[in-house]
């Protein structure tokens, strides 16, 4: 960093420390914390809301308020992730794997403390990294072409093997589901519509928010509703000391924080690889490198929370790289930031690194300061928040579910968002029950589309020469080592714990798990067949993916039906360790469990059904009050007070502040006056 840069950096700091701009930064940070904590509503929605207000501002203030918001959504998204197992933004899905079990164990304070501290440090590292790499940003971005991007995405996908834990075949199968889902929509190479089933909703592929909420939030809420207990049995350890314990945990794992922050900002700088993948890559990295991780990750290991949280906050620093240097957005929210820049006469590109360098540094400072303020606020409130985990289920489930319902609609503002969430909610719930790891599905979904795109561009542009580029070869080499190492370990001698295991042929039997596998194979086969309608370019990837999917799940099925794994002395092994939350209903018969699951699904579907008739927001009010009264058996008074209170909050936030365009209801179409007067019908 030469003297001129230092001068610019200091000048930018001076600008940001103007009391008015600090106030804007604080305002942005507060808004960011709020939108981050609401599942489904992330930085993108928050920024959309802010955009009109920034037009009249000076560039530094506008940057302060916008970056303040963007920087901390991944700090507060830890709150619902830890407390309810519901990711606040797509970036905290990996946090729930260990954060939620910790909360169930009464250690919510510790998990939150660690999450917030790791978020802050990750955010700071991301900002510092961006600040120091300013002089080399342009050459750095220019050196990464489509073949390199392809190699990086393949590397990311290879982590499926790690994230599958002990259920590699199921994990690979889940990844194939994700890859298949990613092919839906308008194929840019052939312009063919794949799997849109005549709907416009699927034209642009599935949105990630309803998919992620379905995969991770719905199953957790369902299990909570089914088991009918509070999240944590007691709060004995939910004291200030728990939180300090969490902070200490972060510092005793400082190298993990640094590594995951590097992963976060590195991947964040690659357009297309967003928050929804970064936390899993960091989690996978931690699971692979941390001592004893394969035993404890997924069942309440604080290092899982630290890995996920430090990476997703570092991402914002990375995402700014292509945004500043070339005006190419590193993420969806960066695209919005970019359009705000243009309206503020801030020209992204070369000038940001020369004549307007102080503006670039004000971005860096804003990110850094917002991370400190954001984590500070969260840490102060963490203890009060932790108490949420002892709220009665009859009250908690409808509240969280209603937030999810209103939030998920913000994805593409279509009824289809609900179908997506329900579909993946059911799939996610079954996967959780049958011991299928869910993270590989998300990884496959996000990276699958990118891999297909970059693969076609690379081959069309370079033929097969692209493989010979040295960065590509290095990354592929690393990928290969990562994938082969476990295989080699198996060949050279099994792990200690496996030594006592043996597999033997047994009488064929058809468990529910096997039926689920058969179902997935049937789905794969039908899609394999249906893909035949497409022209070659469009059918290649779907056929490959479904073909491999059938192989993996087929092998799993044969194992499940014909073999048993047991210890040498004949003890049966129940299930293999996977990196995912498990929920046991020891005191429930499977019939009772299924009955409660159906009731839960009925409540969920009724919101959409009633919403169709009287409007989504009115339906949410009906749901809130009725669920608490009839299902939770709370008093009418309490049900109405809490229901109406939360509903008014949604009305204020979504209708008055965000000015959301609600879906048309039947009643609104019958009586247009209702729609035009109140807008919510």
């Amino acid at each position, binding site marked *: 960093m030469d003297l001129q840069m230092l001068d610019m950096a200091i000048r930018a700091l001076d600008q940001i420390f103007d009391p*008015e*701009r600090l*106030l*804007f930064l604080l305002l942005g940070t507060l808004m960011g914390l709020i939108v981050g904590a609401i599942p489904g509503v992330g930085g993108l929605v928050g920024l*959309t809301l802010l*955009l*009109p*207000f920034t*037009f*009249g*501002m*000076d560039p530094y*203030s506008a940057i302060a308020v916008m970056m303040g918001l963007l920087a901390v959504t991944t700090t507060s998204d830890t709150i619902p992730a830890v407390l309810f197992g519901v990711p606040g933004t797509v970036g905290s899905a990996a946090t729930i794997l260990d954060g939620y079990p910790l909360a169930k164990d009464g250690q919510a304070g510790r998990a939150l403390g660690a999450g917030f501290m790791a978020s802050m440090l990750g955010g700071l590292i991301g900002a510092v990294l961006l600040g120091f790499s300013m002089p080399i940003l342009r050459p750095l*971005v*220019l050196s990464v*072409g*489509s073949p390199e991007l392809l190699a990086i995405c393949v590397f990311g996908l290879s982590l499926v093997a790690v994230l599958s834990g002990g259920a590699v075949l199921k994990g690979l199968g889940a990844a194939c589901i994700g890859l298949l889902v990613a092919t839906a929509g*308008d194929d*840019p*190479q*052939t*312009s063919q*519509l794949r799997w*849109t089933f005549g709907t*416009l909703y699927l*034209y*642009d592929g599935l949105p990630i928010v309803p998919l992620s909420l379905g995969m991770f939030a719905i199953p957790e809420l369902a299990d909570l509703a089914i088991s009918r207990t509070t999240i944590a049995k007691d709060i004995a350890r939910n004291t200030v000391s728990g939180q300090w314990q969490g902070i200490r945990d972060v510092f005793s794992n400082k190298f993990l924080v640094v590594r995951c922050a590097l992963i976060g900002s590195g991947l964040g700088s690659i*357009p297309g690889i967003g928050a929804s993948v970064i936390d899993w890559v960091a989690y996978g990295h931690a699971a692979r490198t941390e001592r004893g991780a394969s035993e404890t990750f997924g069942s309440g290991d604080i290092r899982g929370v630290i890995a996920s949280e430090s990476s997703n906050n570092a991402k914002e620093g990375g995402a700014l790289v*292509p945004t500043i240097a*070339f*005006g*190419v*957005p590193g993420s*969806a929210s960066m*695209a*919005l930031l*970019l*359009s705000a820049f*243009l*309206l503020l*006469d801030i*020209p*992204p*590109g*070369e*000038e940001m690194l020369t004549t307007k360098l102080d503006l670039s540094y004000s971005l860096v400072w804003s990110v850094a300061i917002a991370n400190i303020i954001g984590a500070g606020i969260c840490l102060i409130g963490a203890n009060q928040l932790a108490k949420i985990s002892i709220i009665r289920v009859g009250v908690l489930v409808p509240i969280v579910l209603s937030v999810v319902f209103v939030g998920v609609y913000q994805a*593409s*503002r279509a009824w289809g968002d609900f179908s997506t969430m329900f579909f993946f909610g059911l799939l996610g719930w079954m996967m959780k029950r049958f011991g299928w790891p869910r993270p590989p599905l998300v990884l496959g979904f996000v990276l699958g589309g990118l891999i297909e*795109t*970059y693969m*076609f*561009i690379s081959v*069309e*542009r370079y033929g097969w020469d692209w493989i010979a580029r040295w960065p590509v070869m290095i990354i592929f080499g690393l990928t290969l080592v990562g994938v082969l190492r476990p295989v080699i370990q198996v060949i050279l001698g099994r792990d200690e714990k496996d030594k006592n295991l043996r597999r033997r042929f047994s009488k064929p039997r058809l468990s529910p798990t096997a039926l689920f596998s058969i179902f997935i194979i049937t789905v794969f086969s039908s899609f394999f067949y249906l893909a035949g309608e497409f022209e070659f370019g469009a059918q290649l990837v779907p056929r490959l993916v479904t073909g491999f999917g059938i192989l993996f799940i087929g092998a799993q099925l044969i194992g499940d039906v014909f073999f048993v794994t047991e210890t040498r002395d004949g003890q049966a092994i129940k299930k293999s360790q996977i990196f995912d939350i498990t929920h046991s209903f020891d005191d429930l018969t499977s019939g009772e469990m299924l009955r409660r699951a159906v009731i839960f699904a009925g409540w969920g579907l009724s919101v959409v059904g009633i919403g169709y008739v009287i409007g989504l927001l009115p339906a949410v009010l009906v749901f809130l009050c009725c669920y608490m009264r009839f299902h939770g058996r709370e008093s009418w008074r309490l049900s109405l007070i809490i229901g109406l209170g939360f509903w008014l909050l949604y009305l204020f936030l979504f209708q008055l502040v965000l*000015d959301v*365009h609600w879906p*048309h209801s039947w009643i609104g179409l019958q009586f*247009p006056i209702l*729609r*035009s007067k109140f807008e919510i019908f």
Partner: protein
Amino acid sequence: MKMLSKLVFVTAAGLAATTFAVADASAQFYKGKKIELFLAGGSKGSYNRHSRVLQKYLTKHIAGNPEISITPMPGAGGIKAANYLYNAATRDGTAIGTLLKTIAINEAIGRRGVKYKTEKFGWIVSSGPVDSVLALWTATSPAKTLDGVFKKQVLLGSTGKGSATFIEPTIMNALIGTKFKIITGYKGLGKVHLAVERGEVQGRFASWESLKCCKKKWLSEKKVVVLMQSGLVRNKDLPKVPRVIEFAKNDADREFLKFVAAGSTLGRIYVTPPAIPKAAMSALRAGFWSALKDPEYLATTKKRGLEVAPISG
């Protein structure tokens, strides 16, 4: 506190729908009402930029000073917004939209999902052309002159086969004999531009405004040469650059190229659902027309490199 008062002012300005004594029906029509403007381009693209700048001038100039709210409705290459406006939006004059230049082409080629008839929309105004230009990167392109593009293969970057960045150069290859190889799949024009600078592709056939507003240095330092443009008439910034139609080999080809070019020239169109009240339509047309002529608005758009050259409805 100057900034804070500005913030309050901006908020207040959005809410203010002040009353002026007005006489005739069209002047009364929007009094106290709110117009929802649907954007086919989503919240990130140039359609958003244009509409956001125009927003407050519409409130000022449409009789009755209605509040304008902007609702991005991206999806399906603009078809989602067009379908919504045509089939589902209220027809009382409070829902309007700005649609992409490809809506007529999409209807003509029978693209799946189209549920509208382009000519049945109520046409308010076009705020200006959406002209595309062929821009080649001088450092890497084998062809640097007009002559060259008919002789040498040039790699062009494109966002997808359904987009104008693919359709237009493909038509040129077929009808006027250019030799483009088009690499598709870049997610957005920004990434195409990055690929150009990186040397992965050698040029692109895409929006002129995107160069004018955001790649000023490319033009001033002659890093790109601009060789052809897409419109029916030459863009006022580019009087010396020939149009694609000028290379047509026969009348039939010329007619087809004209149909394609019309999309560029009509460009940024503002429409209403079919059959809205007459009073609303005349208020909208008059309001848009005078908003687009507002000197302050023109100064702002000029500063930001946004193209404005209105064509009435």
